């Protein structure tokens, strides 16, 4: 290994009730792409926040180029040559690229000078970007470029990237990897956080694997198989969901010529969407975030009303029916945002069971609520979906993300839907819970339910769906059978490189 740039020794950080990092040690070499691999909740984010000065470790120490390194705040970390690209972008939609970058700088130069520096950097690293474009008009991949360029302007020695590919199409991932490889060739170290094994194998020189806050192993990704890494990451061999044999019945849900204007200035309009799902079929809908996923779900759940004929249940038009009427007909949905959309954070699980279960589970009589029945229903969801909570009287926000997700999905699945629409069903959920959720969707389909699964996780979609379509700027590609689709084809359905130019490195 080359010279060590940053060395972590025994870093420990505990939060009330949980040890996020337990004595983690590893070294990052100069010019090395180092992967930090682990499930959701393994402590990756806490660890990089300590490196970036956002969180102070309880114990342990770091050395940067041999000298002790203990950043009190991100500014200090940046001064020491450490930069970070966050998973969630912190950009202002209404400002242009240069203004956004200037906002993050200590002493921003004149906009014109800054723009020319942005052009220089973007050309050097093959990240074409117009400094005067409004951020709200950029694709997710281009926004990420803004964040990366913002970091590169500081000329960093270590670039931390938190799950950078979760918002990219396969083609955009390739462009990103070329950039990262160029940075590595120039001697910049990269700490690359991900749980996607294949990309780590393709890109990284070295990997550290975290599980429950502990460093459970290191490996050279190129020489280790994906399944070995997965076992280290999860701690046990995972049983992939069983598809079972399914036969498709008649068409359950039929959307034709659906166009919906964007609900807000920077939302996405749905444009002429067509799709059909048969009973027993799982339709996977891929696409980079912000291409109309939320809008499509709200059209299906009944939160957004359309022309009656645009959405049909079997032969019956339901486009003008609201959520309650659709639930009565057996069309159920589980939105992506758990807190505040699928569930009310401060309400108990019993009250949250009432939220969508009122109609189908008969929890209301003459307008009066049957709390005892609601509690029973909540308990049933908790038991059958292994939701870890002391009881249904606990507030939704007291549950971990994965557990609440199990509750949200379980609440719909147990209502015996005829059509179920889910958006990001396993987002932020650990691997075993994700497997359980996927299995429940497959079982539901086996029972004759038509399932639409909107997700940004392509592996998930390939694992469970029978047919696949992708959303790109509010347009839905024609669905194709999922079996036999190549990554290349999927990427093109998702919009290829989204108009981004390929890097000229």
């Amino acid at each position, binding site marked *: 290994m080359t010279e060590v740039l940053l060395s972590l020794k025994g870093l420990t950080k505990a939060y009330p009730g949980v040890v996020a990092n337990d004595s983690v040690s590893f070294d990052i070499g100069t010019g090395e792409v180092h992967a930090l691999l682990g499930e959701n909740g393994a402590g990756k984010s806490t660890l990089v926040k300590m490196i970036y000065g956002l969180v102070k470790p309880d114990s342990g120490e770091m050395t940067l180029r041999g000298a002790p390194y203990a950043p009190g705040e991100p500014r200090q970390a940046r001064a020491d040559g450490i930069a970070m690209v966050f998973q969630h972008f912190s950009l202002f939609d209404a400002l242009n690229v240069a203004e956004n970058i200037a906002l993050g700088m200590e002493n921003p130069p004149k906009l014109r000078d800054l723009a020319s520096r942005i052009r220089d950097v973007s050309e050097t690293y093959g990240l074409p970007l117009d400094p005067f474009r409004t951020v709200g008009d950029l694709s997710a991949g281009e926004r990420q470029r803004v964040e990366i360029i913002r970091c590169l302007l500081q000329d960093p020695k270590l670039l931390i990237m938190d799950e950078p590919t979760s918002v990219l199409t396969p083609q955009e991932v390739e462009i990103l990897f070329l950039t990262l490889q160029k940075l590595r060739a120039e001697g910049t170290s990269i700490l690359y956080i991900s749980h996607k094994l294949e990309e780590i194998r393709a890109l990284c020189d070295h990997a550290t694997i975290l599980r429950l806050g502990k460093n459970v192993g290191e490996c050279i990704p190129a020489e280790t198989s994906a399944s070995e890494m997965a076992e280290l990451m999860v701690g046990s061999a995972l049983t992939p969901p069983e598809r079972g044999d399914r036969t498709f019945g008649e068409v359950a849900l039929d959307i034709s010529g659906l166009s919906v204007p964007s609900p807000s200035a920077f939302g996405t309009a749905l444009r002429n969407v067509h799709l059909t799902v048969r009973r027993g079929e799982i339709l996977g809908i891929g696409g980079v975030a912000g291409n109309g996923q939320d809008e499509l779900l709200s059209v299906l759940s009944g939160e957004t009303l359309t022309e009656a004929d645009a959405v049909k249940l079997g032969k019956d038009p339901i486009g003008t029916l609201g*959520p309650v009427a659709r*639930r009565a007909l057996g069309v159920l949905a589980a939105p992506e945002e758990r807190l*505040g959309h699928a569930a009310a954070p401060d309400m108990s699980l019993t009250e949250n069971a*009432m*939220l*969508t279960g009122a109609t189908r589970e008969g929890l209301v009589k003459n307008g009066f*609520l049957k709390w005892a029945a609601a509690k029973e229903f909540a308990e049933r969801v908790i038991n059958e979906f292994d939701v870890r909570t002391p009881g249904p009287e606990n*507030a939704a926000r007291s549950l971990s993300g994965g557990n609440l997700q199990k509750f949200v999905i379980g609440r719909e699945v147990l209502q015996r839907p005829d059509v179920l629409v889910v958006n990001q069903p396993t987002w932020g959920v650990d691997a075993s819970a994700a497997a359980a959720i996927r299995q429940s969707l497959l079982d539901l389909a086996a029972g004759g339910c038509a399932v639409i699964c909107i997700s940004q996780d392509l592996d998930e979609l390939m694992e469970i769906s029978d047919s696949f379509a992708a959303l790109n700027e509010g347009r839905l590609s024609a669905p194709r059978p999922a079996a036999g689709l190549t990554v290349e084809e999927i990427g093109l359905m998702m919009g290829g490189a989204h108009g981004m130019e390929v890097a000229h490195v």
Partner: protein
Amino acid sequence: MIRLEKRPQPSQAWSLATPLVAVLATMIAGGLLFAALGKDPVEAIRPIFWEPLFGEFAFYYRPQLLVKGAPLVLIAIGLSLGFKAGIWNIGAEGQYIMGALFGAGVGLAFYPLEAWYIFPLMVIAGGFGGWLWASIPAYLKTRFGTNEILVSLMLVYVAEQFLASMSLGLMKNPEGFGFPGSRNLQQYDSAHNAELIAGSGMHWGVVAALIAVIFAYVLLNRHMVGYHIRLTGEAPRAARFAGFNPTRLILFCLGTSGMLAGLAGMFEVSGPSGQVSIDFNVGYGFTAIIVAFLGRLHPVGILLAGGLMALTYIGGDIAQSNLHLPSSAIQVFQGMLLFFLLAFDLLTNFRISLGKPEVA
């Protein structure tokens, strides 16, 4: 360093303790205020909280508690429904006035006929007047997206002008020697909201307030509409996902709170006050906002808070006349109560921790 940490669950204990702690803090800060004015703090606070209940003249003050508390509770119950859903009716004072005018108007129209149906008609008219006045901001909000806070508040001033016009014009007592103000309804049996038990302070408004408390309790805890209200307040997006119609909720919450405020005004004008006059309204509609929050937007809490607020009103009057405290000092004292309540309210959802700062 002192920091605030978000609790994983709202603390039940703090939620109950907050009003008590707020009252205590108000006593301390108020005591300091009175001391700064050169009064003995204990002597100044004692008449506010003690005299009306157990003092020498308690036989007079206790009925007054009901008379003053009932409109506060009645209005605050209505307001709390909207507040829970994030719909802010600040104009209960105006709805109170309109209820009084509609109710009194019906009564005066029948004068001097004596019949059993006059008072019930006045009740209906009073509720309708308040409902109508609150429906204006409700309609404008649902139709044009106007801000209900501003519209309802400004309609208070319109209602006040209307009240002045009525007491000087249309409703002026023809036998009143030119003085502004209507006939005294206390002297018109069919329209008089008399005490149900003489000397108890118990009039129909008190009964209505108690019914409203029970009604609101059942609505919020057992009925779909109440669930809708709470869900909308906590997570508006989840409420839409659940399939609730925000427009209907706005109409319901503003309409109901207007109706209850109108009823309060009607019971007041036909009972304790007796006549429509320029200075008929004394701020119950605004004080009820404090009462609603002091009661934590909970029906039973509002009942207790209404009593407490009536106590500080009556006690404040006593302190004012016995100790010559300026009336503004009493108002500051009442304002402190709301201030401390909101401040300590934070502890329901957050805990204070002493220690090193950290960023999660």
